[in-house]
């Protein structure tokens, strides 16, 4: 059984909070000292504070603290990370190197645009490549993550309808019951009423229910394709036609773009706009929960409403255009996640024309392989080829052995793997959502499948092993109810 921890021995102390390691007079950085004349602070600022309570730690102790913490944290570089819907692919090292170049990292967002032609070249370069890959007319990189991109798309739709005098009338957004939580939350953020649309037994959009819901009040349908069930929506063209016939717009949740890169283009499917998660499909690292990087694509009828500034070609040069009377305005402070765009640019140029489609082809191959290898122990929720991720169900272990999907996942940690996504989408009972991505070897997939098969045997023969899992980590299963009941969200000298 592999152990995901770094160098730890039994005698090593438990990681203490940094505040408990503080010692008066220590400092962890050679702070620059001003060589300008000293001033009387009170005269200049009025009352100042002297009560600031931050820790005092030496530089080596600081590094040891975080190295120890890193040893109790799992990343893609630790091992296989098949978290469904998250596209945990390899984050190439060269991307870190290019994003760290001083000519990128050391730019101020308010410096004159004339001094950043290279930055504009990167931004427009990413936009141009994403236009070609998605089939949309325009791309903006201003949104800062996926949910922010969803929200921006809905704002474009809202502005579009307002410009046509239909703003008030179209107040409903349709969201399938399988959708990610950010979809309805983003719709609410734009003042829309959310109406759910059911999914059929086969895992497709319920066409009858959709037809019944489509009337003059509908502003948009938010559709994830491939869906969160890992399935390509075969009726996609028909769906877009129906919504358009009713005067509505169709938004594509593009978190699952990995299945389509170089193989099929959502812009050709009939969508009006979509968001992309560059921190999934285009390899920018997730950083333990962020930064994200949320580009959006759109058809030309939505272009007048783009958030400013719009980075675009003008003749031979690239400009940052803020003179846009119909713009929805800014959605973020500056130019978006610029250093993430440098990483995405580097990644896109590494694949290029020749190899771009390999991303979707091998991610779909890997997912179908895992699905095939596990089908006896964890049956697929649908009897169809999957796209970049497979959705399996552990329902029988719950019924027959009192073992939930979560127990199986926790046991996987003991085997040295990060668990897949559980309990999403909400409509599949005891759901496993496994997304291997294209960057994993067959050997890794085999080890993972072997482990899951073994765990499913344990679920029947020695279920207690699963109830108690994980047992190899720094902590056992944690009490989340207690965390809510006795809220403790910051350290205080007396709180521990």
């Amino acid at each position: 059984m592999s152990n995901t921890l770094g160098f730890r021995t039994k005698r090593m102390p438990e990681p203490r909070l940094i505040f408990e390691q503080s010692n008066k007079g220590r400092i962890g950085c050679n702070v620059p000292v001003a060589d300008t004349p000293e001033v009387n602070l009170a005269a200049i600022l009025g009352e100042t504070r002297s009560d600031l309570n931050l820790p005092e730690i030496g530089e080596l102790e600081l590094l040891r603290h975080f190295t120890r913490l890193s040893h109790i944290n799992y990343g893609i570089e630790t091992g296989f990370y098949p978290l469904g819907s998250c596209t945990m692919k390899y984050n190439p090292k060269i991307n870190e190197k290019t994003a760290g170049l001083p000519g990128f990292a050391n730019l101020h967002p308010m410096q004159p645009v004339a001094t950043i032609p290279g930055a504009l070249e990167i931004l427009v370069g990413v936009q141009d490549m994403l236009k070609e890959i998605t089939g949309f007319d325009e791309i903006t990189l201003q949104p800062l993550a996926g949910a922010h991109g969803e929200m921006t798309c809905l704002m474009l739709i809202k502005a579009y309808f307002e410009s046509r005098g239909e703003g008030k009338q179209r107040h409903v957004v349709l969201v399938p019951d399988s959708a990610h939580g950010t979809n309805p939350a983003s719709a609410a953020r734009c003042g829309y009423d959310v109406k759910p649309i059911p999914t059929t037994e086969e895992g497709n959009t319920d066409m009858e229910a959709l037809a019944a819901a489509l009337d003059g009040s509908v502003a948009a349908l938010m559709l994830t394709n491939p869906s969160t069930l890992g399935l390509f929506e075969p009726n996609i063209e028909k769906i877009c036609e129906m919504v358009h016939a009713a005067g509505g717009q169709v938004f594509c949740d593009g978190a699952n773009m990995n299945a389509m890169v170089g193989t099929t283009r959502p812009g050709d499917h009939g969508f009006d706009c979509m968001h992309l998660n560059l921190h999934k499909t285009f390899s920018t690292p997730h950083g333990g929960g962020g930064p994200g990087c949320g580009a959006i694509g759109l058809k030309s009828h939505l272009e007048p409403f783009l958030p400013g500034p719009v980075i675009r070609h003008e003749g031979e040069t690239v400009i940052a255009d803020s003179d846009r009377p119909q713009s929805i305005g800014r959605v973020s402070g500056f130019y978006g996640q610029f250093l993430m765009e440098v990483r995405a640019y580097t990644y896109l140029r590494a694949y290029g024309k020749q190899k771009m489609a390999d991303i979707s082809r091998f991610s779909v191959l890997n997912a179908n392989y895992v699905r095939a290898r596990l089908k006896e122990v964890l049956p697929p929720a649908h009897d169809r080829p999957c796209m970049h991720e497979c959705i399996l169900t552990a329902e029988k272990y719950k019924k027959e052995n009192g073992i939930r999907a979560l127990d199986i996942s926790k046991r996987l940690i003991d085997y040295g793997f990060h668990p897949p996504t559980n309990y999403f989408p909400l409509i599949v009972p005891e759901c496993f959502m496994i997304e291997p991505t294209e960057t994993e070897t067959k050997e890794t997939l085999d080890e993972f499948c072997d482990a899951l098969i073994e765990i499913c045997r344990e679920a029947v023969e020695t279920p207690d092993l699963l109830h108690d899992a994980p047992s190899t980590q720094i902590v056992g299963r944690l009490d989340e109810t207690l965390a809510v009941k006795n809220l403790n969200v910051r350290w205080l000298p007396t709180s521990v």
Partner: protein
Amino acid sequence: MPYIPHTESDVSEMLATIGASSIDELFREIPEKLRVKPGALNLPDALDEPRLMAHLWSISKKNVNMADVTCFLGAGIYDRYIPASVGAVISRGEFLTAYTPYQPEASQGYLQAIYEFQTMVAELYGMDLANASMYDGATSMAEAAIMSTSIKHREKVTISEAVHPHYRQVLATYCWSMGIEIETLPAVSGGLTDLSANSEGTSCIIIQYPNFFGGIEDLAAAREAADKAGALLVVVADPVACALLKPPGAFGADIVVGEGQPMGVAMGLGGPVVGLFTCKKEFIRQIPGRIVGRTKEAHGDKPGYVMTLRTREQDIRREKATSNICTNEALMALAATVYMIALGKNGMRKVATSTVQNTQYAIQKLTEAGATLHYSSKVFGEFVLSLPKDPAVVRDALLKRGILAGLPLGEFYPELADSILVAVTELRTKEEIETYASALKEVLA
């Protein structure tokens, strides 16, 4: 392609297990006419690693970066020193390549670091608690405004004109889409917010500290004005300034937000940066975004950390969530955590003090060189200068001399068309300030 490890025999064995004859067959549910042939897209050619590096390097060289010039530009993003330890920690693969800590047992390292982050951010702002981060300062402020409207059940927010213009633009976008009205308090004439207006019916008063012009606002007066209107007080605060100034929490602010970039995050053309979000304890259930809490093992006594109060969030509450935010800025929050620890209480105070000292020297030298200090208010690290010549012309002339002089304000405030906003951090030296002053004198002559 090194990122895709499949050999030919892997592919044939895998297809055999699947029971498919080709990879193409796996895409059979996509209608034929919607498919493109591999390699058919009009994209640039693939580049090998050395060529890729050279290509990116040559693009980067086209930009003027802050190592080529001396930076006196601030306006929300600051050229501060980043300790070497920050880069060492945030580039560790265990942190850099992790997802959101949905599996706490395998993510204790990150969860503990974020708990430490929350503690120190709350401490700097003098507030009860902080969340695990927001996208950036501007969206963090917009979220605070929206949170105020849902706490107060009022459809109006009030904001000072002396709040960063980009932040106000983002607020305008968010409020338009939710049907929230915005009222603006004047500030341009005196450099500090005029709080005398009656803001009745508003859910919050939003003020920046120090404000966009560098001025130190009277938060006690702002608290009074908010109380009079029965509204919340929302403060957008510079965390570094709060190491020295009396923090907003000490004035009774309800929500304090800000941009964490000055604490260890590269300027990077403004992204990724990190939004800070703190509030009073009583509002914790309305807070947007993730929060890390300390708990214990279910079947043991060891302490551990989890994401908590999850029922506020979009994946559980869907359209009724407090916000749509999911992915945040964890890695930048980690950078700020390392920064706050590396500097500690004495280092942060030193950085803030050096900023004040350098700023005062710059005010003296630049006014001697022919510029006029536009406002008489107390300032921390930034100030407005009026120039006898067109500020954009002056800026461009100084840029040729290797000095990024500041931000001409006419674009944002027509009344300040003759003025420039100058920032001076702890990194500027006596010599650099003197060079700026003598160059300015030449340019103005």
